[in-house]
């Protein structure tokens, strides 16, 4: 038996304001959706003592479609990912 992670991250297109906060998110290569509200944001820095260090800035967003998504930026200025 093996466990499969449920909310594995996948790459997304995100546009940010000058402060680095997401303003538009294009999910699943669809058209960009405007961010209505940033409900929460948090930093996760973990496993820094290994060669698989994690440095993520998470945002919990409400899009103009009403959808709630969690995205993160992988390291300062890095790529954006969303959780399914």
């Amino acid at each position, binding site marked *: *038996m*093996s*466990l*499969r*992670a*449920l*909310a*594995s*991250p996948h790459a997304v297109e995100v546009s940010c304001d000058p402060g680095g906060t997401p303003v538009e998110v294009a999910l699943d290569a669809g058209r960009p959706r405007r961010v209505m509200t940033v409900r929460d944001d*948090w930093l*996760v820095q*973990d496993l820094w003592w290994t060669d698989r260090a*994690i440095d*993520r800035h*998470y945002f919990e967003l409400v899009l103009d479609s009403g959808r709630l998504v*969690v995205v993160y930026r992988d390291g300062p200025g890095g790529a954006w990912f969303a*959780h399914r």
Partner: protein
Amino acid sequence: MCSVIVAVHIPRLALLVALLRARRPLDAPVALGPDPGAPQVVGLCTPAAEAQGVRPGLRVGEALARCPGLDLVVADPGAAADASERTLERLEAAGFAVEPIGIDAAAFDARGTMRLHGGLDGVLRRVRAALPVGAGGRVGAAPSLFGALQAAHEAPAGRPLILAPGEVAGFLAPLPVDRLPLIPESIRALHDLGLRTIGQVAALPRAAVLDRLGFPGLAAWRLACGEDDRALRPRIPPRPLRATITFPEPVGARPALDAAARLLLGELAAAARGRGAALRTLAMRARLVDGGSWVRDLALREATTDPERLALAALPRLGEIPAPVTDLWIIGDASGALGGHQLTAVPSPAQELRARAGEAVRQVRAAQGDEALLRIVEIEPWSRRPERRWALTPYEPVPE
């Protein structure tokens, strides 16, 4: 016809397995490192390390001072137990009723199999063929269990040591008293009395031994005199069932381990019911993130297939795991009898519904595979990383 006990002994089995996993040579100075959270002392060591003064139980700092080139490897008790179990299975496959003695030794009474294998020589040939290649297994035969075990300890590699009924006491006499099955305090007491060999203990008057060391000492004295009437207690060959989980990332949180163990126990219980048997023992094993492993064996008070009762016995042990886990597996011995409990004459509607749902799940899985029906299990629901909160696992029907 008196007993012919055959004993096998694989010296340093745990070290050999660890060296094999770490891909280190046996002729290098290597020792087993301390377990996580255990006292900082070295375990079994290779002859090259022993030649430089390293001994099991020595503090790591002192061992490194004596042997600067000493290499420490992580013990893997799970793999060592597997290696031991495979040896026992091969002996049982040859028709021997084997009693395991620790992880590195076993014994059986050869009388019932002499004709089958063409005499004692044939039995010993068969035994040597059952030992793992390259492990340097030793074989001894004697009329008593203690004598056979000591003969196996002293036998040269590749040649069995056979003791005739009159030779046991003479053979045991020069061996160190540490070989006697006594508690460390009694062994120390013998050393304090200046007794170094088993022969010196055998020469003591019976009453003096009883007076100084009590009944355990008297039993040891009888062994020293070559009198061993302990009957062998061969094990019932287990019918093992195994369930394994591989975690996407190392897991250290107790609730996550509990959830995974519950899944495994449910799977084992269902498999045991499928065999029409119940689980008697559980062996819980975990591969740790640093490469070592963790092992706990537990015997159930009575054979059962109730996942809740299995969980009650097994889950508290998970708190002893010293490091995050990459794989967790549980092996159950399904040799217990199913039944013995009062059954209801008329099932309740809820039971009927569960039985139908369970049958439906089984049919879908049989047609579409294990991945056809999945369920979500909580791994670390409090985690700030969403991919660690939940996972998908094959759906197991609720037990009837």
